[in-house]
């Protein structure tokens, strides 16, 4: 799939940030929303952006997407400054706002062709890019239908497809599972994991399970600044996944092949073609994302969570510390 960055890109140094926000400040009239925010996002990272309502999560994402300009500070995409004079650089950032920006009278294919066109894809890449995202997000069956007639789940998929159509380096998602039903949430999470291959992802959410299931790093917006939660709070040691496939052996091999210390129990059959995998991680967040990616690409990933939800409880404790005014 073209929208998923290749393995070669994945092997690039994660130390080189694809997105950097440096000393970013933003105020709306007298209200200071961001005050000296710093963030560096590496390739392959999924960063969960937490914070109470009005803490500046959406503002942070809008500044990173080039939709808003900061009052102070700088934004860099792959080392280049994102400025009003360089609109072309915005093509390297995919953005899905909280309310999916869709033209209801257009067909799904027409809309994606339009986004591919204005994002500057050449005529040769244009058709292939549209076909890729239609396939990747299971939109082929509705490609000719008018967007206004589609369900919220489809609209969310189209939103993700438009954000990824130009294969951006950075993907920004503002509460991407808001308003979806549980099945759609599972589906959206799997899509986010797949989309993270070879690019940096930031998504804002209020849902701790989501952070626990997806993120390699968790940051919390507190008083206009970002605070990275302690690695202990972000490191789930055990994962439980439910996959759908005929034979789980290749999936088990692929996960084991990721790192030496990864342990796995014998897959338990939950039904015809449904398997439960219990995975013991070798280290913290990075392996977690890698495992999730392998599961999502080698089988149909039905669900993914931390066994016992240690991560959730650790996050809850960390966030309770912020509520008391004491950072974790």
């Amino acid at each position, binding site marked *: 799939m073209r929208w998923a960055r290749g393995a070669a890109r994945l092997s690039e140094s994660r130390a080189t940030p694809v997105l950097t926000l440096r000393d970013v400040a933003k105020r709306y009239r007298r209200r200071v929303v961001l005050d000296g925010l710093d963030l560096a996002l590496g390739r392959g990272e999924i960063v969960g952006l937490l914070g109470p309502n009005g803490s500046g999560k959406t503002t942070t994402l809008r500044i990173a997407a*080039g939709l808003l*300009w900061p009052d102070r500070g700088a934004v860099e995409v792959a080392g280049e400054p994102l400025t009003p004079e360089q609109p072309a650089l915005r093509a390297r950032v995919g953005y899905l706002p909280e309310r999916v920006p869709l*033209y209801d009278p257009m067909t799904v294919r027409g809309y994606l062709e*339009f986004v591919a*066109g204005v*994002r500057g894809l050449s005529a040769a890449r244009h058709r292939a890019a549209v076909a890729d995202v239609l396939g990747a997000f299971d939109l082929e069956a509705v490609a000719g239908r008018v967007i206004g007639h589609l369900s919220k789940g489809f609209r969310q998929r189209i939103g993700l497809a438009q954000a990824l159509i130009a294969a951006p380096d950075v993907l920004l998602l503002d509460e991407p599972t808001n308003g979806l039903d549980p099945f759609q949430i599972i589906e959206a999470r799997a899509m986010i994991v797949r989309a993270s291959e070879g690019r940096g992802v930031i998504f804002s959410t209020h849902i701790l399970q989501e952070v626990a299931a997806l993120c390699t790093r968790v940051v919390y917006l507190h008083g206009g600044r970002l605070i990275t939660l302690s690695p202990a709070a972000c490191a789930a040691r055990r994962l439980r996944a439910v996959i759908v496939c005929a034979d789980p052996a290749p999936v088990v091999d692929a996960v084991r092949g990721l790192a030496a210390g990864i342990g796995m129990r014998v897959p338990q059959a939950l039904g015809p073609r449904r398997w439960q995998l219990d995975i013991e991680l070798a280290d913290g967040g990075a392996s977690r994302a890698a495992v999730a990616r392998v599961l999502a690409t080698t089988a149909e990933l039905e669900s993914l969570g931390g066994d016992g939800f240690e991560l959730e409880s650790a996050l809850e404790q960390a966030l309770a510390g912020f509520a008391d005014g004491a950072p974790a």
Partner: protein
Amino acid sequence: MRAFGWLLRRELQHYFVTPIAAVSIAVFWAASGFFFSFNALFVSAVDMVTAFHNMSLLLMLMMPLLSMRTLAEERQADTLELLLTLPLGEGAIIGAKYCALLVVLLAMLAGSTLIIVPLALYGAPDYGPIVGGYLGVFVLGAAFAAIGVCASSIARNQVVAAVSTWAALLLAWFIDYAAALDPLSGAARWLQHVSFSVQYVDLIRGVISREALTWFGSVIAVMLVCAVQLLRWRRL
């Protein structure tokens, strides 16, 4: 440039795939044809100056309805966030939307040229002033559209955008009435100079007036620059 083309194409699609353009163009053709026929049959005024005057008034009514959606609709539908995160400058966004409006305006005027047919059949019209008159009405409509785009870039609501445009157009049309208070003053001369109803008189008579073209060209430029600037301020 390719991105501009795609945006222009989407705008045109929106006008021509939905009934917006079809209804507007049909109403303009029907109304301009009706007024021309009425004047020819019942008032015995078979001249294009009256027809151009009626077209100007029709455009004053219709252009705000076409322009009101340009940016206010994007804001209402949250698609402005998409446009502002695309690799496009604000000038390209406003430019594409304005060009699409001009295409609709051209289609409106092109269809109304049918009224020249009876003139050609039963008389010997001088085509120079007719072409000049059409150019004048086009420039006037383009100025109306630019004011509408600017109003739409301020308003969050389409109805507010349309009503604000009507208010601005009425003010620009009748502003010279205030000159009657002190007709010989410098202010009166200035009011007559900026009034649309004074400036367009030469244009609809088919006279290519440099003063009128400069004035309407300036209005268009200022309004579009304001719209671009307002869009930029949304990022602050």
